[in-house]
């Protein structure tokens, strides 16, 4: 099954949305919808779920229209699960009744509710009301509730936004396992790079109501400006763990090897974020330096921006360095030159992946 979306929606005081995307609903996979706050990510989810009507365009599932002109399939007929930012649990119902809410009478009796409660680790809390749960527990119930009727697709609207970091971290792992167990594809909205990198199999980058880029998360995010600083950027790459040494991970990235701080936990695959300001360039390999990572690189592109320069490198994987223009002139750097890139281990952030996406 393939969901094709090509919709437009205008708001009086908001962005106008004009989005085109396809989603494969046959296989499990998490598509991350990534973009800054207010770019229309939530609206796009609401359009797909049927909670909002597009002004123009169509949403079709294998050619069967969910939304086209005046033909509007109501939200309750679409079988699309939705996890809201802060759960939106029914306060008058128990945990068990919340989870069973979307299931038919027979299905609710079949033990699936109990199984879901077990899988989200809330056994013993079936009779609690949402008001008696912590934020993380509420989101677990919301997730179980959305998955209970076995929807065709689950939409998640920043489900971890209201949680503190450790709770969010833990729930992220559980989310992936839960979706995989039922084989339900998901579309996840986030503006958090770390979250996008640790969960996404595929990424859509959204800006001002449009989807501007699609691809693997490492490709989409590599070189994109970070939120804190317009000039500084991050290179993102896939890596394989090949060893551990003195608290550092030894990683294989493309044809290169890197050392980076170990975030802890068992994993064999990771995505790396390398801050461009943590990369130094050298003409020839010199004496000993504190940087653990020395990579042979070739300059692919050079972009002078006032006092600073962005240098794009190929060192077995794409890497960006942010250096001063002065240093560029001093070293006489030019496109095609061979250099050594020194990467501080502390400039690398390791995002573990649960399994091969």
């Amino acid at each position, binding site marked *: 099954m393939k969901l094709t979306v090509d919709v437009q929606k205008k708001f009086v005081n908001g962005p106008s949305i004009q989005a085109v995307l396809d989603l494969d609903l046959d296989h499990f996979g998490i598509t991350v919808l990534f973009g800054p706050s207010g770019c229309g990510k939530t609206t796009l989810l609401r359009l797909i779920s049927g909670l909002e009507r597009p002004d123009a365009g169509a949403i079709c599932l294998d050619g069967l229209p969910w939304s086209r002109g005046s033909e509007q399939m109501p*939200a*309750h007929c679409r079988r699309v*699960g*939705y996890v809201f930012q802060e759960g939106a649990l029914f*306060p008058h119902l128990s945990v068990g009744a919340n989870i069973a*809410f*979307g299931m038919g009478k027979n299905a609710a009796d079949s033990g699936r509710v109990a199984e879901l409660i077990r899988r989200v680790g809330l056994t013993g809390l079936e009779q609690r009301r949402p008001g008696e749960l912590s934020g993380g527990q509420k989101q677990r119930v919301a997730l179980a509730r959305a998955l209970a009727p076995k929807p065709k697709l689950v939409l998640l609207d920043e489900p971890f936004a209201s949680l503190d970091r450790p709770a969010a971290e833990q729930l992220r792992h559980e989310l992936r396992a839960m979706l995989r167990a039922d084989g339900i594809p998901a579309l996840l909205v986030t503006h958090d790079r770390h979250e996008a990198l640790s969960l996404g199999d595929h990424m859509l980058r959204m800006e001002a109501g449009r989807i501007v880029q699609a691809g693997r998360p490492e490709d989409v995010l590599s070189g994109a400006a970070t939120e804190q600083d317009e000039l500084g950027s991050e290179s993102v790459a896939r890596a394989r763990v090949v060893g551990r040494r003195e608290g550092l991970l030894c990683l294989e990235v493309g044809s290169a090897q890197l050392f980076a701080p170990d975030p802890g936990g068992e994993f064999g695959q990771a995505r790396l974020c390398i801050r461009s300001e943590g990369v130094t360039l050298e003409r020839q390999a010199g004496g000993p330096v504190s940087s653990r990572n020395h990579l042979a690189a070739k300059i692919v592109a050079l972009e002078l921006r006032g006092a600073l320069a962005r240098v794009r490198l190929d060192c077995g994987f794409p890497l960006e360095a942010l250096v001063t223009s002065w240093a560029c002139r001093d070293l006489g750097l030019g496109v095609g030159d061979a250099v050594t890139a020194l990467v501080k281990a502390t400039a690398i952030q390791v995002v573990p992946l649960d399994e091969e996406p």
Partner: protein
Amino acid sequence: MIPAAPWMDWSAAALSVRLACSCVFLLAPLGIALAWPLAYGRFRGKLLLEAVLLMPLVLPPTVLGFYLLQSFGPRSPLGKLWEVITGGTLVFSFSGLLIAALLINLPFFLQPLVASLGGVDRRLLEAAATLGHGRISTYLRVALPLSWRGLLAGAILAFAHAIGEFGVVLMVGGNLPGRTRTLSIALFDQVQAFELGAAHRTALVLLSFAFLVLLSTAWLRAREPR
């Protein structure tokens, strides 16, 4: 010697309670059905419907009573139909009184309920939709249970108002002991007959009752979680 007035007109009190109970019993399904379009509906003529349903709040009861008397009369189509079906008349009967009470008390029932429904978090209704529940199911299983305070407040207000209604009752029901004479009409009679002791007792009962009702609805509203 003038016979001592009874401590209270018990048959009138019983009739008032019977009228108010039947009224609330019938209002509940009617009001619950009408509250949905008023709280969530988006359709043409919603304002008009609102105005018509809420009119009894501001209309002089005698005006409503007059029109009801006209439309209930034995020569009116409704009156004739009623006579064919039941063999009795609507005017000066308990049934006529009850229909009048329904119309006049509907807004008292609706207002707190619609306000409560309007305060239910929209995301909860949307969540129910994404879980496969249509509008009616969402209304009955999410919106209404979460608005139980408004529902109860509406029922209490309608009950209290039905106990004390005077103008419409007098116009439609007249003043037949045991059939259409309610407490507030008994009070009127007692004053007319200078039975001031009995009048004081009746008035005090109605007063304390009204006070208790307002207190309980205020308490319900104060505890509404928002």
